[in-house]
């Protein structure tokens, strides 16, 4: 097991290097860079900029260097915990992330918890009551959840909330709390704002998990070991949870790792629509404005969480399913 984890960490390091190269290249691919776009914008407005200032800015941001050198500057910085400098915000990337990362992680984790909390009971119910009216209802709602774009749902809920309940569901805090230091009042205000974004972000994941759990559980319920347990004289409810459910849960555990990136990308658009202070909109703006270091750093952090999440779910799966004991 320890061997396995060490080996996986080596692979993770290699993977992250590859991700950093690919993301850096992708961000650099469009012609031009942030500075030339900025200068053009200023010139359009009629501002007089002399070449020396531009050269000075280029050197300051390291833009005069060839791309390979820029890359190494960025990566060596990353290794020392320096995420670089955001052009468009004129602030260190680390500061920007520190503002938004806690809310992002909080919302993501809550979303994943809500996803499982809704999907598992419904999946079990649907499988044990196959073709019952409620099973059909859940299937119908599930397919709507799977096929409806989340930003559309966000818009609909915002509209309904505003028109019929007089709620403003945008943002994480009511306007009067913005800029205020954290207090109990602000915290409870935030709690009141959380459910709708979390429900929206978790919807498609929940619908998918319900289908997966229902399918695997239906397979497991028909396996002979369930009859063995029944022939022992176990209560139906006890044997259901002790055997088929216990086994049907395993595929869900292995999905924890890659639920994270899908939650994150689902959250980008929803966050823009709902005006949530998460990393999502920041990434979107950074990619549009070729804010290389900001975009690259966000992609790196997201990749890091994803590979660590995958490793954790692999380890977890090996613990709960003895058939997947890792070879020494």
């Amino acid at each position, binding site marked *: 097991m320890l061997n396995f984890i060490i080996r996986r960490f080596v692979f993770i390091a290699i993977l992250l290097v590859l991700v950093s190269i690919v993301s850096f290249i992708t961000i650099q691919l469009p012609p031009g860079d942030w500075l030339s776009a900025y200068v053009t914008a200023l010139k359009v407005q009629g501002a007089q900029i002399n070449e020396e200032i531009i050269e000075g800015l280029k050197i300051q941001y390291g833009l005069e260097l060839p791309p390979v050198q820029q890359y190494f500057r960025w990566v060596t910085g990353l290794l020392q915990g320096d995420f670089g400098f955001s052009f468009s915000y004129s602030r260190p990337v680390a500061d920007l992330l520190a503002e938004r990362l806690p809310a992002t992680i909080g919302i993501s984790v809550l979303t994943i918890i809500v996803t499982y909390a809704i999907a598992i009971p419904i999946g079990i119910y649907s499988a044990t009551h196959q073709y019952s009216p409620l099973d059909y209802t859940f299937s119908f709602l599930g397919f709507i959840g799977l096929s409806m774009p989340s930003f559309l749902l966000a818009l609909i809920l915002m509209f309904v909330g505003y028109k019929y309940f007089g709620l403003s569901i945008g943002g994480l805090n009511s306007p009067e709390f913005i800029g205020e230091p954290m207090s109990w009042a602000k915290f409870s205000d935030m709690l009141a704002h959380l459910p709708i974004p979390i429900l929206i972000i978790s919807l498609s994941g929940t619908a998918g998990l319900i289908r997966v759990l229902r399918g695997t559980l239906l397979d497991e319920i028909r396996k*002979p070991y369930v009859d063995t347990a*029944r022939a*022992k004289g176990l209560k139906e409810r006890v044997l259901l949870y002790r055997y088929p459910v216990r*086994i049907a849960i395993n595929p869900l555990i292995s999905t924890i790792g890659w639920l994270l990136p899908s939650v994150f990308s689902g959250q980008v658009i929803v966050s823009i629509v709902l005006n949530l202070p998460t990393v999502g909109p920041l990434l979107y703006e950074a990619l549009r404005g070729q804010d290389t270091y900001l975009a690259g750093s966000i992609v790196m952090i997201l990749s890091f969480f994803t590979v660590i999440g995958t490793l954790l779910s692999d380890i977890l799966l090996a613990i709960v399913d*003895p*058939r997947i004991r890792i070879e020494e």
Partner: protein
Amino acid sequence: MQTPLLSIKNLRTYFHLDEGVLKAVDGVDLEMQTGQTLGIIGESGSGKSVMARSVMRLIAPPGRVEAGSQILLNTNDGEPVDIAQLPYDGDALRQIRGKSISMIFQEPMTSLSPVHRVGDQILEAVLLHVTRDKTEARAITLDAIQRVGIPNPERAFLSYPHELSGGLRQRIMIAMALACRPQLLIADEPTTALDVTVQWQILRLMDALRNDLGMAILYITHDLGVVAQIADTVAVMYLGQIVETADVFTIFERPLHPYTQSLLKSIPKVGAQSRQRLEAIGGTVPVPINLPVRCRFADRCQFVKPECSIAAPALRLVDNGHAVRCFLHHQEVEHGR
């Protein structure tokens, strides 16, 4: 004559499908004594497995043990219980399952939970029926594992099913079934998935355990060789009905029903000419939906007579302990007397 341990009367298990009612078991009568091994034999689709599962009420919808069926079990303590009348998932039924009657299934590969240690799976039954004390239950479990001839029970206890061979898994299944000392063991083709040498070991083991524990075995198989080895009495099933029943010697020496006779002819014999073709029974087992009232074997029978297509023969005693469901022999008896 002592009261039978198990007495089945007019057992009917029907599956209510969209296409019609599939009569998987259609009027089976059986009696079993303590310590007896009854072999049920028949082709695939003859209803023998459904019959065995009906005894423990392990029939899932759309299947149902029909009203009027009777499965009387003479438990050690007190009154006989009619299993067919007990409410599903009620305490009374669960007291019988695993305690009075245990079952071993066909597939040792999939009949054990893959994610639980086999010891814990046996322990579960012991805790349910014998004792609540964990230490004592563990001792009983280890004893059961030892009894089925597994060396190093402590190690086997901690194993997962995928770490064990097919033969060992079936031994574990037997240990699980016997840990609570049932009065009746139902074995549904327990050796079909195993190779012949392991099959032989398992059969010997079951026979020895039957003698030790004084239980009865209901042994379901399509393998005549296995029946010859383990059974005292044999019942031949065809399309949900018993067509012939007799003690094991009579069945092999003097089979009366044409179906039994053809079954016996289909066994390969050691020393027979290798070029000689085995005799197969022509046709296949029909699906028992909307069967007409007539002899169910008539279509495949070599000795079919006009009356076979008009009426259905009853299972009638033709000799001491030898009953057959065939007009050929019913008349012989009637004329002879």
